[in-house]
């Protein structure tokens, strides 16, 4: 009986020791696991990433995100335009074009190298008058220089007869945009040091009497600072003039058009 009791005590002591050892192992395991958690987590995340790749969101979902972003940008643009308009009214500056526009199909293009023109399928019957500015997605493309009842001819900004007052947004320097018959018009600066660099955005000038102000025209492609009497810059029009199918006529009279 005493032997049995001794065996029992010895057994329970062993079990207790085993329990303590297990506890220690568990504690050490937990500490090690917590120390290696990030490494193991990284490994598991990578493995999960590889295994779940076929179920990742595809281009369609990405397109939804892009569309949502574009929508947000449009909303922000509308808000900024309204704010800009309100501030211009407060300061007393001439306002840019807003609503009074007419969409017109392009029915004829430049028939040869020496003409830079478009013919639109809308005319005086639709409210178009000589001198109205014409824009396309991207920015200004030209002005109306001839109009019949149902057609209107647009002299493009790339035509040698075209001259439009513009200014560089970043530097606030004004210049005269002249066509040369090629796809890229030339910007002649008024000042000797316009500090313009390739990539600068050019818009129509508020001082211009031919077109409403603030219409994007293009981006400076390169600058020739050695030209006399003032530097010149070659401009890449922001509207794809060669591939325009529909244009928008701004039915807004400019000071030049006033009788």
């Amino acid at each position, binding site marked *: 009986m005493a032997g049995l009791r001794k065996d029992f005590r010895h057994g329970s002591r062993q079990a207790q020791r085993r329990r303590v050892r297990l506890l220690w192992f568990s504690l050490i395991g937990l500490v090690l696991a917590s120390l290696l958690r990030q490494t193991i987590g990284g490994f598991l995340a990578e493995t999960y990433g590889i295994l779940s790749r076929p179920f990742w969101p595809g281009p369609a979902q990405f397109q939804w995100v892009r569309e949502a972003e574009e929508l947000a940008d449009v909303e922000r643009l509308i808000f900024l335009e309204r704010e800009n308009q309100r501030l211009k009214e407060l300061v007393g500056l001439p306002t840019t074009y807003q609503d009074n526009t007419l969409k017109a199909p392009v029915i*004829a293009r*430049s028939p*040869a190298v020496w003409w830079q023109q478009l013919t639109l399928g809308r005319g005086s019957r639709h409210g178009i008058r000589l001198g109205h500015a014409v824009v396309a997605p991207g920015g200004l493309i030209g002005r109306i220089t001839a109009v019949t009842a149902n057609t209107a001819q647009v002299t493009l900004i790339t035509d040698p007869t075209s001259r439009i007052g513009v200014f560089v947004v970043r530097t606030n320097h004004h210049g005269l945009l002249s066509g040369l018959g090629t796809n890229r018009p030339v910007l002649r600066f008024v000042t000797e040091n316009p500090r313009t660099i390739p990539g600068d955005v050019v818009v129509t000038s508020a001082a211009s009497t031919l077109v409403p102000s603030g219409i994007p025209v293009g981006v400076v492609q390169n600058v020739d600072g050695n030209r006399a009497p003032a530097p010149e810059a070659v401009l890449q029009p922001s509207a794809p003039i060669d591939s325009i199918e529909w244009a928008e006529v701004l039915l807004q009279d400019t000071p030049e058009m006033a009788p």
Partner: protein
Amino acid sequence: MKPAKVWPQSLLLVGGITGLAALMLSLLSPSWLRLGGISPNWLVLWLLPWSLSQGSHAGLMGAVFLGFSLETLTIGAATPLYGLGLLAWLWGRLRRYYHLNHPNPLTMATQAILGSLAVDLTLMVQLHLMADLCSPQMQFGPGSLCSHGAPVGWSGGEIAAAGLYGTMAAAVVTGLLAPLVSTVLLRLWYRLDGSHHD
């Protein structure tokens, strides 16, 4: 007295329709018929076979009709009429020779290239002169060579240099299409004319 030549009605009809098509193609300038953004000179492609088959007088009439139509539909004071008239007269004089021997496609291409260059060069000279004359004075008005359609702020040399590459490109594109378009038209008019035996 030599009797005036009477053109078959079918020839006049087809000639008129194809001439109108050439004018329409010049104005429409479809993108699928452009090479590197450059359109062929459709009026030259039409005028070449017309003048070669019908002679100088008919060629001149065609040139005046097409040149004047295009001039009225374009902005600016320069006109393609002079170049087209010159070409019609020159090609019309070759009628006798080509009436006996059909021009081969290479000849047609060469003639079309030279024709396109000639028309564009006459336009270039006009713009060159107008730019040089109008830039110093900048006074527009009736009776003056300067008009609102004259180049402004450029020297004639600058205008010419800018358009030179386009002129050459248009000539190449016209030359590429000539063996197809002009040769077919020439054969068609010989057949409608009835005076030529293949």
